[in-house]
C-alpha cells in the first residue's frame, strides 16, 4: 500500500480515537466543577458525592485523552513532514501555545485536584477543577485555530516556498474558527450531558441509589439540551458559511452533482462516484436552498461545476472529495444531533413530571443515548476533514504533497498496526473501567464514593 493512504489511515484512526475522549473532558470538567461549587455553596454532601463519583469517571477518560494526545503533537512531523515544513511557521505556533498555555494548567491542576481533597480548602479545591475546565477550553481554542487554518487559510503570505504568518490577529479572528469553536465546545457539553444522563439511567434501571442518580440525571438534562441545541444551531450557521468558504465540501455533503436553483435536499441517495451521479435519491424540493439562504430559491453549485472551476484555478486534477463518505457522515452527525435534542427534551419532560424512574423504556433509550454524541462528533470530523480532500491546506497544498519523504510505507504500516492494536486493547480496558466505576451503588453519607 502506498505511504499516503497508510498515513491518512493512521492519522484518521488516531485522531478520531483521541476525539472520543476530548469532548467528554471539555464537558465533564465543567460539570464536575459546577457540582463541587454547589457543594461549597450549599454544603450539600450529595453534590460532593456527585463531584467524586463523576470525577472518577472523568479521570479515567482524562488519562486516555492525555496518552492519545501525545501522538497528536508528534505525528505532524512524523507522517506529514513536508506539510510541517510548508506551514510550520503558522501551524507550529498554536500547538506550542496550546502546550504552554493549556496542557500545563490541565495536568498540574488535575494532579492537585486528585491529591488535594484533604490538603486544600473546599473552595480552593473546586477552583482547581474550574482551572482544568477552563484550560480544556483554551486547549480546544488553539487546536481549532490550527485546524481552521487548514480549512480556511488566513493571515499568511507565501514566501521562500512556504506559508509564513503575516497576521497573528487574522488567525485569531478566522471566520471558520468563530463558528467551529462554539460548535465543538457545545458538542463537549452535549457529550458530557448524555454520558451522565445515560449512566444515571442505567443505574436507575438497575435500582442503584435512586436519590443520587435521579439528582445526577436531572443535572445532566440541562447540559444535554443546551449542548445539543447550541451545537445544532451553530452547525446550521456553519453550513451557511461553508457555501462560500468550501462550496465543494457542501456539494459533496449533499451529493449534489449538478448546480440547482432552487436546490433540493436529498434525504438518502445511492451515490455512484465513478459516473458522478446518484442512481437513486429521495429529495425534498427547495429545502437545500432554504437551509443555505433562508429562502426557497437560490443557486447551490454542484460538484461538476465546482470541479471545472477548480481545474481552471489550480490546474488539472481531481478536486472531488469522497462524496459518499461526506454525504453519510453528514447524515450521521445531523441524525444523531436530532435524536439528541429529542431525547434531551424527553428527559426534561419526565424529570419535571417526576416520572423518570417509572418509565423503563426511556431509561433504556437514555442509556443507549450515550453513543449519540460520539456518533455526531466523529461524523462531524469525518465530514470536516474528508470534505476538504484532496487538500491538506485548502487551496494551498494537497494531502499527497504533504506526506513525509523520509518515511517508508513499511514503517507506517508497522506504526499503524501498533497503534491499532494498542488502541483496541485500551478501548476494552477503558470501557471495562467506566462500567466498573460508573454502574454501581453509591455509599450514602460523606463517605468516599
Amino acid at each position: 500500500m502506498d505511504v499516503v493512504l497508510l498515513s491518512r489511515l493512521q492519522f484518521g484512526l488516531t485522531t478520531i480515537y483521541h476525539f472520543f475522549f476530548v469532548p467528554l473532558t471539555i464537558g465533564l470538567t465543567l460539570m464536575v466543577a459546577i457540582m463541587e461549587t454547589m457543594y461549597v455553596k450549599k454544603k450539600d454532601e450529595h453534590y460532593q458525592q456527585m463531584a467524586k463519583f463523576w470525577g472518577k469517571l472523568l479521570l479515567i477518560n482524562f488519562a486516555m485523552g492525555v496518552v492519545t494526545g501525545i501522538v497528536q503533537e508528534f505525528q505532524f512531523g512524523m507522517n506529514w513532514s513536508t506539510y510541517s515544513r510548508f506551514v510550520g511557521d503558522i501551524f507550529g505556533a498554536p500547538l506550542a501555545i496550546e502546550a504552554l498555555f493549556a496542557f500545563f494548567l490541565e495536568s498540574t491542576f488535575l494532579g492537585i485536584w486528585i491529591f488535594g481533597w484533604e490538603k486544600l480548602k473546599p473552595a480552593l479545591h473546586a477552583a482547581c477543577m474550574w482551572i482544568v475546565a477552563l484550560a480544556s477550553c483554551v486547549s480546544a481554542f488553539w487546536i481549532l485555530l490550527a485546524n481552521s487554518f487548514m480549512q480556511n487559510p488566513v493571515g499568511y503570505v507565501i514566501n521562500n516556498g512556504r506559508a509564513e504568518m503575516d497576521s497573528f490577529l487574522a488567525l485569531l479572528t478566522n471566520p471558520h474558527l468563530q463558528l467551529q469553536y462554539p460548535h465543538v465546545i457545545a458538542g463537549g457539553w452535549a457529550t458530557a450531558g448524555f454520558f451522565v444522563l445515560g449512566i444515571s439511567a442505567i443505574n436507575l434501571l438497575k435500582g442503584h441509589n435512586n436519590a443520587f442518580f435521579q439528582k445526577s440525571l436531572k443535572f445532566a438534562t440541562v447540559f444535554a439540551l443546551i449542548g445539543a441545541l447550541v451545537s445544532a444551531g451553530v452547525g446550521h450557521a456553519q453550513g451557511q458559511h461553508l457555501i462560500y468558504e468550501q462550496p465543494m465540501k457542501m456539494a459533496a455533503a449533499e451529493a449534489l452533482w449538478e448546480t440547482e436553483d432552487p436546490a433540493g435536499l436529498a434525504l438518502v441517495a445511492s451515490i455512484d462516484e465513478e459516473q458522478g451521479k446518484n442512481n437513486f435519491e429521495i429529495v425534498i424540493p427547495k429545502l437545500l436552498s432554504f437551509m443555505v439562504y433562508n429562502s426557497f430559491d437560490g443557486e447551490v453549485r454542484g460538484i461538476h461545476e465546482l470541479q471545472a472551476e477548480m481545474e481552471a484555478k489550480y490546474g488539472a486534477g481531481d478536486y472531488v472529495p469522497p462524496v459518499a463518505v461526506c454525504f453519510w457522515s453528514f447524515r450521521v452527525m445531523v441524525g444523531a444531533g436530532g435524536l439528541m435534542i429529542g431525547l434531551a427534551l424527553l428527559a426534561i419532560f419526565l424529570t419535571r413530571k417526576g416520572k423518570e424512574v417509572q418509565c423503563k423504556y426511556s431509561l433504556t433509550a437514555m442509556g443507549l443515548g450515550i453513543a449519540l454524541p460520539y456518533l455526531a462528533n466523529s461524523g462531524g470530523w469525518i465530514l470536516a476533514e474528508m470534505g476538504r480532500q484532496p487538500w491538506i491546506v485548502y487551496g494551498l497544498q494537497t494531502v499527497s504533497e504533504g506526506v513525509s519523504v523520509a518515511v517508508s510505507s513499511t514503517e507506517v504500516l508497522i506504526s499503524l498496526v501498533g497503534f491499532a492494536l494498542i488502541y483496541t486493547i485500551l478501548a476494552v480496558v477503558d470501557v471495562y473501567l467506566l462500567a466498573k466505576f460508573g454502574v454501581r451503588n453509591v455509599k450514602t453519607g460523606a463517605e468516599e464514593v
Partner: protein
Amino acid sequence: MELNVLWFILIGVLFAGFFILEGFDYGVGIMLPFVSKTDEERRVVLNTIGPFWDGNEVWLLTAGGAIFAAFPNWYATLFSGFYLALFLILLALIVRGVAIDFRSKVDNLTWRKTWDILFFIGSLLPALLFGVAVSNFLTGVPIDANMEFVGNLFTLLTPFTLLGGLVFVLVFAFHGCLFLSLKSGVAEINARVKAYTSKIGLVMLVAVVAWVVYAALITGLLSSVLAIGATVLAALCLIGALVLQAKNKNGLAFAASVTAILAVTVMVFGTMFPNVLISTLNPVWSLTIYNACSSPYTLKIMTIVAVTLVPIVLLYQGWSFWMFRKRVTKNDLHY
C-alpha cells in the same frame, strides 16, 4: 540577542526541564520492581510521583511544540527521520500513562502486576531511546541536500548511541533513587533505595565517563568551550551527588543530580550550536538555527507568548511541588 539564538536556548531549557522532571519519573518507574516488594509498597513508590508526572510530561510536549513553532524544518526532519524510534517512545508513553492511572483501580494482583511491568518498560524504553536520540544529536545523522533524513532505525543505533542510551537509563535511575529517598515515607523502601543508589551511582559514573570520552573522540564536543565546561560541571555534580548521598545528605545530592542533568543538556546543545541537526554526509547540509527557523514575525510572537507564560508555569508547578512536599506514606495513596 537574535531570536534564533534565544529560541535555541529556550528549547534547550525545555529539554533540560523535561530531563530533570521526567528524569526522576522515569527513574522511579525503572526502580519500581527493585525497591518495592508488596503491592502497598509499589503504590507508595508510584504515589511519590503521583501529583507530578503528568505535568512533568508536558515539558516534552512543549519542547516538541516549540521546535515545530520556532524551527519547523528541525521538527520535520527530526520527527520523520527518527520515525520508528519515536513510534516506540509514543507506545511506551501511552502504556506508561494508563498504567499508573489504571493499576490501582482494580483489586486484582494479576491486573496490578501486569500494569506495573508495563510501567517499568514504559519508563525504561523512553529513557533509553532519549539517550540514543541525544547521542545522535551529538554525532549527527545522514541528512541530504533537501534536509531529508536518509537512513533507518538501525542508522541511529551505533555503539556510541547505545552507550548514550545506557547512560540516560543509569542517570535517570540514580536521579529517581535520590527522589525516592526524599519522598518515600516507608522505611523498608528507603533502605532498599539506599542500597541501590550507591551501586547504580558507581556504574553510572563509569558509563558517563566512557560516553563523554567517546563523544570527545568522535563528536564536536571539544570544539565548544561551553560544552567542555558543562561536561566538567556535570561530572563534578554526579560525583558530588554520589558522595553526598553516601553521607545521607539526600536533598543536596538531588540538587546535584538536577544540576548534572542541566549541565548534560548544556553540553549537548553547546556541542550542536549553531546546528540543530548535524549532517554526517556534508556539513553544508546540516540544519542550523538559521536555515531551519520560522520567520522573524512568528519568532517575535512566540517570544512574547513564551516570556509571558513560562514564568507563570514555573510558579504554579513550583506551588504544586511545595504543596505535596511531604513524604508519601501508606496512608496517602491515591493511585
